[in-house]
């Protein structure tokens, strides 16, 4: 793998579980040793560049029985800030992440989104130049996810270098550049829109059916580019060249086997579609 992230860039690394994203993030964050190869951060090895990195692992590592402020004061202490300076910085950070009002609440009383923002806050101390966020929106409800992503957008304005590890296409689309990773290799890398364009995908049809079966997928694959159909939570995604032309045919074919189509809609392809087109694998498991 060859990966270069430029200072001030918001880079998203997107791939399915087991593709090596977290391993790569933890190697950059100096939590693991690489089995081979070399990583340089501002010309230094990760072990010697720890003071520049703010790593936010997947797990909720903040202490639930401490308050938000106490958690941040703990990290300020670990970073060696004197008490008064630490308090000032912590107040500023709490303000930045929108948790000033809840600073004295125990983290166990925080929502998932508030807790994640607090954990990102541990990577916002001065002198930290690179933020590594490992699957930060996993498990957040849509509203908490939106709030969290707007925080990341704010950080982007401050020219922080951000490496976002994710398997969610919509999160990756916020990045200035996206790397698609599969089995430890970066299979495509570019700006989100350019990646979509390069994939050649035009329209994507979301087809919801009353039931799901292999036969339905087989029929739909006849209408999809390269015969690839993505199974989703509620139905199928079909990659079409001409939606208007194939829609009646799809409905007729499914009707012939007694399958009722409950909804059809068309949308622009997502990064998850691009990943599927390249690998025939889904980035996210269908629940």
């Amino acid at each position: 793998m060859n990966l270069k992230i430029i200072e001030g860039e918001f880079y998203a690394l997107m791939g399915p579980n087991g593709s090596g994203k977290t391993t790569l993030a933890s190697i950059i964050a100096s939590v693991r040793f690489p089995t081979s190869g070399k990583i340089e951060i501002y010309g230094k090895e990760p072990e010697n560049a720890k003071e520049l990195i703010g790593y936010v692992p997947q797990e909720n590592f903040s202490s639930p029985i401490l308050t938000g402020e106490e958690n941040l004061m703990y990290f300020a202490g670990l970073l060696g800030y004197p008490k008064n300076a630490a308090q000032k910085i912590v107040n500023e950070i709490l303000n930045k992440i929108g948790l000033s009002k809840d600073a004295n609440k125990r983290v166990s009383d925080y929502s998932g989104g508030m807790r994640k923002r607090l954990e990102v806050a541990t990577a916002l101390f001065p002198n930290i130049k690179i933020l590594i966020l490992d699957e930060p929106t996993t498990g957040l409800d849509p509203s908490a996810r939106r709030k969290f992503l707007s925080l990341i957008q704010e950080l982007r304005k401050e020219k922080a270098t951000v490496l976002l590890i994710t398997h969610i296409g919509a999160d990756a689309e916020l990045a200035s550049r996206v790397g698609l990773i599969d089995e430890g290799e970066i299979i495509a890398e570019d700006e989100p829109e350019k990646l979509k364009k390069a994939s050649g995908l035009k329209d994507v049809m979301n087809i919801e059916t009353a039931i799901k079966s292999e036969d339905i997928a087989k029929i739909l694959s006849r209408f999809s580019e390269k015969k690839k159909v993505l199974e989703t939570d509620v139905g199928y995604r079909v990659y079409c060249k001409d939606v208007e032309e194939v829609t009646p045919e799809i409905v007729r074919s499914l009707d012939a086997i007694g399958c009722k189509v409950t909804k059809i809609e068309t949308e622009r392809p997502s990064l998850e579609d691009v990943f599927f087109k390249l690998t025939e694998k889904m980035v996210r498991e269908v629940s």
Partner: protein
Amino acid sequence: MGQITATLGKTIKEFIRQKTILFWTIAWPILWVLIGSFSFTGDAPSEVVSYIKGSIAISMSVFALMTAGIANLPGNIAQDRERGLLSKLMSMPINPWRDFVGRILALLAFSSLAAILVTLVGYGCGARFSYSLISLLQSIGFLLLVSLASAGIGMLIGTFIKHVHGAIMSGVGIAVVTAAISGVMAPFSSLPWILQQFARIYPISSANSSITCLVVGEGYAGYNPLTASQTTFTIVISLLLFFAGLITYSRFCWRKE
């Protein structure tokens, strides 16, 4: 603030705010002081009863130190690892030894508080002691050995038992069982011969008997543990357990894969 004071502050707050920890380290020994002081004194003469109560208060203070080291410390380590804090810390410019010193200082501060509370309750129940300044200082030395040996065992448990509840329950189990079979929770004289031998070599019960001997009297300890050989052995084994735990913790808990 330095790394040590940051870790010390965080760990003490976590100890004090967890009901399970407060129960096993403070409430449980106090309960036994109350039960023991009013139930286990038998028909002993009144001038002896207050010293029996004194030996019970000491044993329960030692038990509080044991629980803090053997159960609370591994619980705290396992909790930090399970929730990914150790990964986060490994990514930061942090010295593992300072983290360790912070944890141990928190343990000593918390367990001292527990031991003082247990002793005060014992005193309130009528426990009396007979000591000089020298014997008091020697007792504090033995209490420190109890904490070090317990912390050593605790770090071994915390390093190898990954699950939080597994680590806490293993610690509580080891603390309760070893206290019961080594004379910390029962009179030395009532133990069978084989367990009396174990009580002599188990550094925590040996230190417990030594303290009882120093501040209550040899008769209440059941034997004289203050021989040169046994004292040396207790010191050596306590330090060995502590350093074994320390090396294991810093090697395996902070090991990069």
